[in-house]
């Protein structure tokens, strides 16, 4: 433990840790932490890669569900106090706390995933989920035989609505006649929708019964239930999210039904940031990892979307060159 009086001195002395023998990376995870096979894990991968290249060490702290602002603030402060630099806050919930802590430790470089913090020493690593989802929508529209697809969101928070908006637009731009069902599993501060495979399954089978045959779910582990339901219906496809779900051990049984996954390459963003600090030119401002920068992409494992590659590439090109603007709200 450290008393407050030491704070200032330690922060200034630790600011130099970035150079020389490797980097001391501080990772503040969102709930779930390393091993969540989603974006926390992806961030960890980026940090691991940086550590392997530049040497140094990684300190990981993980949020808990009952966290408040003060807890997140404290987590970042603890890392800064202990001399870690750079410090990455994984998840939008660190936005407010990072604003405060970054001001307190001006010589430390901070990075935040999925949100924007307006400070000179913060790198805001954001992703264009809507663009990736747009491509997922294109794939869904091209693969549906019944002209009916579905979207399942875990909780109706803005981040997930981005997925829905991009997906719907992608579907309709490709085939206007295709019907899109949308369903959220829980609402507001009830986050159970991210951890209820049974509800994901019920929602997916409801959509399948109503005639949908491609289902895109952005619902954390609830998506597993949706994939399972899809697996039970011949000719139906599931689209996964965040990481390449085709390769997740827990879903190996259903991999034949996983058309593709909308992958968010958090690792790239984190790696870039750590590298910039290591190189002595820390990234700051908003770094939007868009489709153009390969921040989001569609996974090709399984080869199920190889046949529509040309259409997907065309759509991607249009987004990259700006002729298609993807909405962020449905």
């Amino acid at each position, binding site marked *: *433990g450290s008393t407050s009086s030491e704070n200032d001195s330690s922060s200034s002395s630790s600011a130099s840790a970035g150079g020389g023998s490797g980097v001391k990376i501080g990772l503040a995870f969102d709930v779930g932490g390393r091993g969540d096979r989603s974006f926390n894990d992806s961030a960890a991968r980026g940090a691991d890669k940086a550590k392997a290249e530049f040497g140094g060490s990684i300190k990981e702290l993980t949020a808990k569900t009952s966290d408040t602002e003060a807890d997140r603030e*404290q987590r970042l402060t*603890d890392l800064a106090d*202990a001399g870690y630099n750079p410090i990455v806050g994984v998840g939008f919930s660190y*936005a407010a706390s990072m604003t405060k802590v970054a001001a307190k430790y001006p010589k430390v470089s901070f990075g935040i995933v999925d949100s924007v913090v*307006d400070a000179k020493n913060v790198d805001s690593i954001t992703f264009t989920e809507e663009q990736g989802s747009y491509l997922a929508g294109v794939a869904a529209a091209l693969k549906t035989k019944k002209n009916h697809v579905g979207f399942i969101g875990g909780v109706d928070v803005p981040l997930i609505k981005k997925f829905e908006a991009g997906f719907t637009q992608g579907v309709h731009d490709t085939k206007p006649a295709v019907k899109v069902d949308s369903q959220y599993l829980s*609402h*507001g*501060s*009830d986050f159970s929708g991210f951890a209820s495979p049974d509800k994901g399954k019920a929602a997916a089978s409801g959509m399948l019964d109503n005639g949908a045959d491609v289902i895109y779910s952005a619902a954390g582990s609830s998506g597993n239930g949706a994939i399972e339901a899809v697996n039970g219906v011949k000719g139906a496809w599931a689209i996964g999210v965040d990481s390449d779900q085709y390769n997740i051990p827990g879903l190996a049984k259903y991999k034949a039904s996983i058309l593709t996954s909308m992958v968010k390459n958090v690792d790239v963003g984190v790696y870039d940031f750590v590298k910039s600090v290591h190189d002595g030119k820390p990234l700051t401002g908003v770094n939007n990892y868009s489709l153009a920068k390969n921040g989001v992409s569609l996974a090709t494992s399984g080869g199920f979307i190889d046949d529509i590659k040309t259409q997907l590439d065309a759509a991607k090109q249009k987004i990259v060159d700006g002729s298609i603007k993807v909405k962020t709200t449905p």
Partner: protein
Amino acid sequence: MKKLTSRIDKERLLLGVAAPLLAIVTALVVTALVILATGKNPGAAFSDMLTYGSASDSQVYILNKATTYYLAGVAVAIGFRMNLFNIGVDGQYRLAAFVAAVLGGALTVPGWIAIPLIILCAMATGALWAAIAGILKVTRGVSEVISTIMLNSIATAIIAYLLQPGKLAELQSGGTVVSTDPLPKSSYFFTIDTGAAGVLWGFIVVAVLVGIAYWFVLGRTRFGFDLRTVGQSESAATASGVSVKKMVATSMIISGAVAGLIGMPTLLNDSHQFSNDFPSGIGFTGIAIALLGRNNPVGIALGALLWGFLERTTNHLEFEGYDKEILGVIQGVIVLCVVIAYELVRRYGLKRQQQRVGAELAAQAAAPTQKQEVA
């Protein structure tokens, strides 16, 4: 002289201290065993918790946390004193904080008008939401345990519906956080800057006032006496002239009003807006804290501080290579030990008292000629 000694009953005092002590020692032993079982050193963990928890910035953190928890504990305790189990504190404070934040964001009047208005609005919302459960109980006989659980979920749905861009909220930059209009600077509650240790929330003053009011109303007023009477025996209360139904509804409303305050330290001192990451679940923490504190205003304060201390220090444990999930284990064990210890001590105390009454009577019976000396 004799009266004095009988009032300040040493034995009772001793028993009062014994219960929490017994509980905390047991909890420590259990926790130590759990840590040992994972092959780590519990001693080092405890000493890290102590040193880290006693740092001045930790103390500010703990006080701030305890402010919120204290209000939650009192809100729950008001129900408990009536034998009412208000699980709905959680929904009540969230809805209250939301409505108050909307109002606060819309107000453009000076702070000395706005702040009381925001607080009153929060209390009124919490009270109203609790009143539903209270009224359902007295008019339709619906158990408040069930109705408040349902109302928690319904409150969540209402907030989810209204906290959306275009309704009562807007999307923040970054596109991931929705929140209500931020409060104007003038509507911030005062804070005490302790320098490097951090900023102490001014709302702690309100929490202390609530505690004093709780103690005073329950212990010193007619209303408080009636309330406690209902809590101890509904039948006796009815016979003594208390309208139990009115009392149930009233105390539910008061509990809800205090619950409305729970979100205020965060809103007025910290976040200044209600967003989709506003802390939730504090109502349930309040239950644990009210249990720890035996519904006693000072006890609840100690419970709230203990909770804050545990949360602060277990977070740091992760830094030292321990699993911070140990927090849940410690909290669970402490609550369980405390309730059992209190029960054991209560029983022992009652038995002692009966024995004393019996002994005294026997002594009187043995010397029937002597003039009785009672009291």
